[in-house]
């Protein structure tokens, strides 16, 4: 590990860390928090919403269309939560079905065709997990959206507005610059989901939130987010316009920095950014971690198989199955 000072020794999250993380989660989910469409009106001019995936339907949980940013045409795409019960039902609480991601892909391809920069807004608890979404390929839709974004020949600026919820967020979240509002959160699974799997209790969501280090500041520390945009007053919900203006300046700044790049450089840098995310130790060991098989039974079995003759073991002898599988530790 070359950067050892950033590694923390594991321990249960401290109470103040839990408090901090959970207050951010609450702000990120605040019912008056500005939504994508609220901010589009402040940040851009002339937004023209386009609809439909040209395959199955139009998903109101994702909105998108062209607009201008300081006079320059860009494609804007984002998750859209509702602001009350009725609009939340319409928007499915901001949790897209596959057709939402496929609409986004269509708009991204159009931006790519016309050489328009893309701005995306992330604000979802996650892709909708219902059976209809499964039937229509929720996983495929997210995967192909990620794939498309990694190869688009136009600059992409991503803004985490509120909840950056897992794959459903990342499906709009591959970019050249990733910004986050100060109280936004970003996580691999909802704190409730994480708590119910690892702590076996949804009541431990606060603890899980802290353990996953999901605040915007944590995300900068992890390299997932490039910069934080400060929120006004007590949070973005207190002043949508000021929030939008701050975002506008940040997005323009990011675009300005990207605008000098040639396409090949843009793509190589985006690729390198993704390739660089993660933490691992390169030990240089060339052999498996466990050089000998553990069980006498198996060792005897091997000897019996070719008695007395040294031979290269089969891989299944080096890494045999256990006969029970432990599902407890699977992730989300």
């Amino acid at each position, binding site marked *: 590990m070359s950067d050892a000072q950033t590694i923390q020794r594991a321990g249960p999250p401290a109470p103040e860390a839990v408090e901090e993380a959970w207050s951010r989660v609450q702000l990120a989910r605040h019912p008056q928090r500005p939504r994508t469409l609220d901010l589009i009106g402040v940040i851009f001019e002339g937004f*023209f919403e386009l609809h439909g995936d040209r395959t*199955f339907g139009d998903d109101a949980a994702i909105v998108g269309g062209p607009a201008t940013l300081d006079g320059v045409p860009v494609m804007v795409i984002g998750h859209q939560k509702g602001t009350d019960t009725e609009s939340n039902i319409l928007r499915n609480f901001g949790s897209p079905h596959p057709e939402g991601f496929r609409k986004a892909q269509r708009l991204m391809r*159009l931006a790519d065709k016309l050489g328009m920069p893309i701005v995306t807004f992330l604000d979802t608890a996650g892709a909708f997990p219902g059976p209809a979404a499964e039937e229509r390929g929720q996983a495929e839709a997210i995967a192909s959206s990620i794939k498309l974004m990694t190869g688009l020949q136009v600059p992409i600026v991503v803004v985490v507005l509120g909840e950056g919820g897992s794959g459903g967020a990342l499906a709009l979240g591959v970019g050249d610059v990733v910004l986050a509002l100060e109280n936004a959160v970003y996580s691999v699974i909802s704190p409730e989901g994480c708590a119910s799997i690892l702590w076996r209790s949804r009541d431990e969501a606060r603890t899980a939130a802290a353990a996953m280090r999901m605040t915007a500041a944590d995300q900068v520390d992890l390299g997932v987010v490039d910069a934080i945009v400060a929120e006004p007053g007590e949070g973005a919900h207190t002043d949508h316009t000021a929030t939008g203006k701050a975002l506008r300046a940040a997005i323009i700044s990011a675009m300005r920095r990207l*605008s000098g790049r040639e*396409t090949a450089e843009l793509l190589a840098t985006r690729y390198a*950014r993704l390739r660089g995310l993660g933490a691992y130790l390169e030990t240089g060991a060339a052999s498996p971690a466990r050089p000998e098989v553990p069980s006498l039974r198996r060792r005897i079995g091997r000897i019996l198989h070719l008695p007395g003759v040294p031979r290269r073991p089969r891989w299944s002898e080096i890494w045999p199955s256990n006969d029970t599988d432990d599902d407890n530790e699977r992730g989300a």
Partner: protein
Amino acid sequence: MPIKFPFSRRAAPSDAWTKCPSCDAQVFNKQLERNQRLCPSCGHHFRMSVGERLDLLLDRESFEERDAGLEAVDRLGFHDDRPYDDRLEASRVKTGLRDAVVWGTGTIEGQRVAIGIFDFRFMGGSMGSVVGEKLARCFETALAERIPAIVVSASGGARMQEGTLALMQLAKTTAPLVRLDDAGVPFIAVLTDPTTGGVLASFASLGDVILAEPKALIGFAGARVASDTVGEEMPEGFQTAEFLLTHGFVDAVVPRPELRSSLARLLRLLPVAAVDDGAQTTPPERPWGPIGALSGLAERFGGAVSETIGIDVDQPPADGNGRTPAAEREEAR
């Protein structure tokens, strides 16, 4: 080919009034003309002639028709109860058009476009060789001049009297769209009542943006065929513009009074890609691509930025593996 002008087929009274198919109101034709052919009672969108559509959409006197001389030919020697040639001539007389599409260049709020417009009165707006050829030339001109293409459709589909030659117009009108994609030239489809069959199954479904007029009938198969096939009634609103919007195939349903301004807005928001070096095949890095667009972007954004936000995308922090992005970039090459 001589054009005959027979007497009007209708007597004066029926010529002066039209019954609205939506609300049954009797509408004075003069009023329809003044009102963009919208029913004054219920807003029903009556079909428009190509001339009325041009007046609706284009800047005054900006339209220059192209290829006005193309005329259909009865290649099959097609004859049902009368020869194809007779049907053609009747439509020519009725409409003053040579075939079901007029195309040319013009401007919409000052923005130059290549535009093709169907007239449903000419053999039901059916697409035969002339329609296909005109639309292909419209798209090719958009490509050559790097101006957006717009087609306003109103068609029953492919023209049966031209057999598979009509069917092949689906491919002829679609093939140029691949080139528009490669060149970064936008194409906007406007679907009006009705847009069905082979026209919907080709270019009309492939607009970068697809607008439709309210309540327009839009569908692949005739509703009767669909109903016969499955032996059930079609759902309410089946094959309307609104149905297609719900099902993801139309970007917006735009009432006629807003159509011109919507097109103008889209033309401003979806500009032809920036640079053209004239390459025909897909270039390694598209010359019209972000480079050109973004050098303009850099100028635009140059002075207007808060520097207080410390984004340094050229030097993000080294990740846990101690490799800098620059090193990654080297490796990626």
